[in-house]
């Protein structure tokens, strides 16, 4: 058996983001610079009281092509919006012509796929017997596979379609698996990332765990932080070998994953799993902690996550590397967050920007890592580490670099 090709680096040959700021990287970039949040008070019906959410404007109006009508649900609308944004579908088309449709995989993360569609169908159940309405298409909406199937069909691709669902690391973990498929020679390129939608199950579930911020937007790393604001969003990348990507494309330099093996919904208090994942990403890229210029934190805004992550980041970087969470802009987009924050990391690299934690009037004085509260210019920024952690003790860290 031949030696496998080296995994890293890979290029982000195309990038697309849809967030509460709107469709595209441009509104996200502008909001980061101007310190403008996409979070708003929740006006959706039947949601927990007094919370803020990151809702994608205009999502309900996005059309699914008639030939794929069975896929119509909020999550696939979000994917559709991302495909049409930032020239993403056009870039995939070019890659398809170069490599062949069967040589491009679709590897996408989601925590709940189209379950919002099931929630609507549930309200329309037959009064007698409770059967779901006959027009409800389980396989193409609620099923996790619905997301990569839709994206593959929409892009005319024929490579493997893989649905990754590791809670809030899904989007990051999808990129790692896509990279392995390229390294193993299964495919030459991959559409990877994550898409997750606002739904009642998620919002009420986090409410039941008493992890939602109330009365205002989330305040990651703040001394008075009180929880998460949930958002929806999509982050897509076209992973390619650097020589085959457009010049100047940002690079995925390495990735690392770990399990906590500790508890289903509480992080390991010392951040052991987080440290292991970050170290694995550094090792994959052959880099020492000193090579990192900025850490984009998972930073959900809960008491436990942010304290654990501070300890983990301090363990590896002490107070030498600025770090911050950008979830007060986007909300916690769950299975999309790792992908969206990869794109935010790439924007920060391009602009030499450290986006200070939004909404944290005072950062937690117990934190020992170099948490940035205000935006700061950091010209010459070369490498960013992006963290994602999730329920079930899933951890993933991605290392993003500027073009070679």
């Amino acid at each position, binding site marked *: 058996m031949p030696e496998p090709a080296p995994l890293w680096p890979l290029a982000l040959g195309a990038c697309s983001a849809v967030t509460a700021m709107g469709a595209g990287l441009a509104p996200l970039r502008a909001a980061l610079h101007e310190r403008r949040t996409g979070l708003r008070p929740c006006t959706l019906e039947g949601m927990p009281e007094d919370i803020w959410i990151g809702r994608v404007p205009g999502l309900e109006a996005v059309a699914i092509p008639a030939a794929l009508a069975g896929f119509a649900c909020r999550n696939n609308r979000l994917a559709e919006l991302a495909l049409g944004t930032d020239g993403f579908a056009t870039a995939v088309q070019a890659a398809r012509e170069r490599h062949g449709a069967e040589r491009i995989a679709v590897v996408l993360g989601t925590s709940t796929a189209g379950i919002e569609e099931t929630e609507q169908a549930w309200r329309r159940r037959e009064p007698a017997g409770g059967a779901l309405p006959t027009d409800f298409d*389980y396989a193409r909406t609620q099923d996790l596979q619905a997301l990569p199937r839709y994206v593959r069909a929409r892009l005319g691709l024929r490579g493997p379609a*893989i*649905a990754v*669902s590791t809670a809030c690391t899904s989007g990051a973990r999808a990129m790692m698996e896509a990279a392995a498929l390229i390294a193993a020679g*299964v495919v030459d390129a991959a559409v990877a990332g994550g898409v997750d939608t606002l739904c009642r199950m998620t919002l009420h579930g986090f409410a039941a765990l008493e992890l939602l911020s109330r009365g205002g937007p989330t305040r990651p790393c703040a001394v008075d932080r009180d929880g998460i604001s949930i958002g929806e969003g999509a982050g897509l990348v076209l992973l390619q070998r650097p020589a085959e990507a457009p010049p100047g494309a940002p690079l995925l330099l390495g990735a690392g*994953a*770990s399990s906590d093996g500790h508890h289903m919904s509480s992080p390991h208090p010392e951040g052991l799993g987080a440290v292991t994942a970050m170290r694995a990403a550094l090792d994959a890229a052959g880099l020492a902690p000193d090579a990192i210029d900025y850490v984009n934190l998972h930073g959900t805004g809960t008491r436990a996550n942010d304290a654990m992550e501070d300890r983990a980041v301090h363990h590896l970087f002490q107070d030498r590397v600025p770090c911050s969470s950008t979830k007060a802009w986007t909300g916690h987009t769950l299975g999309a967050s790792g992908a969206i924050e990869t794109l935010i990391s790439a924007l920060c690299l391009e602009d030499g920007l450290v986006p200070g934690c939004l909404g944290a009037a005072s950062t937690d004085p117990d934190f020992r890592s170099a948490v940035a509260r205000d935006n700061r210019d950091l010209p010459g920024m070369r490498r960013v580490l992006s963290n994602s952690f999730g329920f079930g003790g899933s951890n993933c860290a991605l290392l993003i670099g500027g073009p070679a």
Partner: protein
Amino acid sequence: MSLLQCRVDGIGLLGPGLPGWEASLACLAGRASWARGEISAPPPGLLPPTERRRTGLPVRLALAVAAEATAAEPDRAGLETVFASGNGDGAIVGGILEALHDPAGIAISPTAFHNSVHNAPSGYWHIAVGSTAPSVSLGGHDGSFAAGLLVAATAVATRRRPVLFCAYDVPMAPPLDRVRPTGCAFAAALLLRPMGAAGNLLALRYVAAPAEATPAADALDLLAAENPAARALPLLRALAIRREAALQLPLDESAHLALELAPC
């Protein structure tokens, strides 16, 4: 595409009338007849009692087959894992959907919510064996076993480390069972090792074309169609017979994995 190669070492199995890999060998090899029976999935003894109580059928099935596949492995904690399931935990998801529409008010159990994540069995397994190794959890609808096998074999090939692959599925709760029928509960696990290790040689290739349709020849073939994880049966039967085999495992209506098995 290039061929992915690995060795199949340990195997775990639980299905109706299939109470473990070793216990099912005669039946899978055709030396004994198969009869559908109840599945027994005891609370996982590997877990601490507080965690054990919180586990439902998918977690119990997944942990039972993972434990059987790794029974001879001295370093379970060092194993990377890949979990695959089409349905996830339909009982929990159904229960949450029911609670969300309760006219008396919404009360979701926090335990149900954290158990609703698709990677819950992975989380419990890594707690059970005290493992911080990487793990990924996949969907895949009816092709989840094939998707998981592709991802696990890719991980073995690229990282040159053994990988525990576990596929499991259980029927959904009403009313979801009518829009997503699943005939029985089933789970299978394979401990895959890199080339160089001993064990059955498995080579696989992704093919962007539908699998050839093969009519069911017996009751086990029919069982294979009842549950996404039971689609492991053709491979498990070839492993039990210890004969060279070429198989096609459908990923979906447009693609499959071409498998070649060489026992040793």
